[in-house]
């Protein structure tokens, strides 16, 4: 089985954060470090922003600007939701279907993660493996 591509590894990392959020139901932001300090959503995802930037740079270097743009676009909504989460700009709301539960702030963050993961997964399927040759060399 071939090694996962850097893009696969990236959206799997997003999936891990999703699992963390879901399992702790928002408490991920209530505890952190030795003294249970409040940590921000931005802090939780900052390393992944660096990863997304590196993927974009690599794809641009390979002449694949559209793919680089798709990574940027795919993570844009997530970045905005993260910012709103940290700045108390998210409000719980009722889903479009009358049978839906109220979507908490954490639910909205998970929803944004799901959207990003889905788009990145689709993109990964369209990029040939040889585009990533040498990515991990430097």
């Amino acid at each position, binding site marked *: 089985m071939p090694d996962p591509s850097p893009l696969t590894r990236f959206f799997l990392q997003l999936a891990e954060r999703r699992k963390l959020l879901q399992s702790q139901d928002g408490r991920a932001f209530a505890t952190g470090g030795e003294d249970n300090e409040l940590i921000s959503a931005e802090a939780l995802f900052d390393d992944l*922003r660096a990863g997304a930037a*590196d993927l974009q740079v690599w794809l641009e270097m390979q*002449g694949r*600007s559209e793919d680089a743009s798709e990574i*940027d676009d795919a993570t844009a909504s997530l970045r905005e939701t993260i910012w*709103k989460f940290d700045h108390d*700009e998210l409000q719980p709301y009722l889903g479009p279907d009358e049978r839906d539960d109220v979507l908490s702030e954490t639910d909205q963050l998970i929803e944004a993660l799901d959207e990003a993961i889905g788009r990145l997964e689709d993109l990964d399927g369209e990029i040939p493996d040889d585009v990533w040759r*040498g990515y991990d*060399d*430097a």
Partner: protein
Amino acid sequence: MRSSFAESLRAIPAPGARRDGRPMIDGERWDRLLAAEAEMVVNLEIMGYSGLAQRIDRKFSRFCQAVTQNSGGESSGAAAAFEQDDSLTELKHLVEATGRRLGADPEPKEASQREVEDEDELPPALTANQIIVMRTMARFDPSQLLSAARIEEAIDPSRRISVRTIGDVVRRLHELGYAERPEGDRRGARLTTRGRRILRKIAD
């Protein structure tokens, strides 16, 4: 080691450290930032990374527009504040990533070297030792200058090459334009962008 542009960006206070919703960027700092950005973008264009240059330039334009919108002295709306914070953070990460991949201050090569560097150029007939040394050097950050001893330490133990041989190899790579000694003959070497590109063409 960070590029001039990366350093200028890092000098901008992080989101949340501002007063009245405005970043504390004085006129002189703005001038340095604009000059550093222009230099990086032009160099990337000359190096053939037009897409990357345009990406960085678009992010920077977005940041500048957001700062202009927020600079009216009144408290900014959430959308405007997000634009400023997000565009700055994205720009920092993009420039840092570019520095890691292409060196702290990517610079175009001399015209004669660029003429030789045709995309259809066949990989050269490198010796096994040259390939081993190049692969070892490629594992280090482009900003690091490596001595022959340092390269020798990092080479896979199953493929031992003497320090003296490594020195000869690095000299030959330098002649081929695949390695450089940016701080003189006694300060270590690193692969050039061309060297890294040629390495990628070499089949395993």
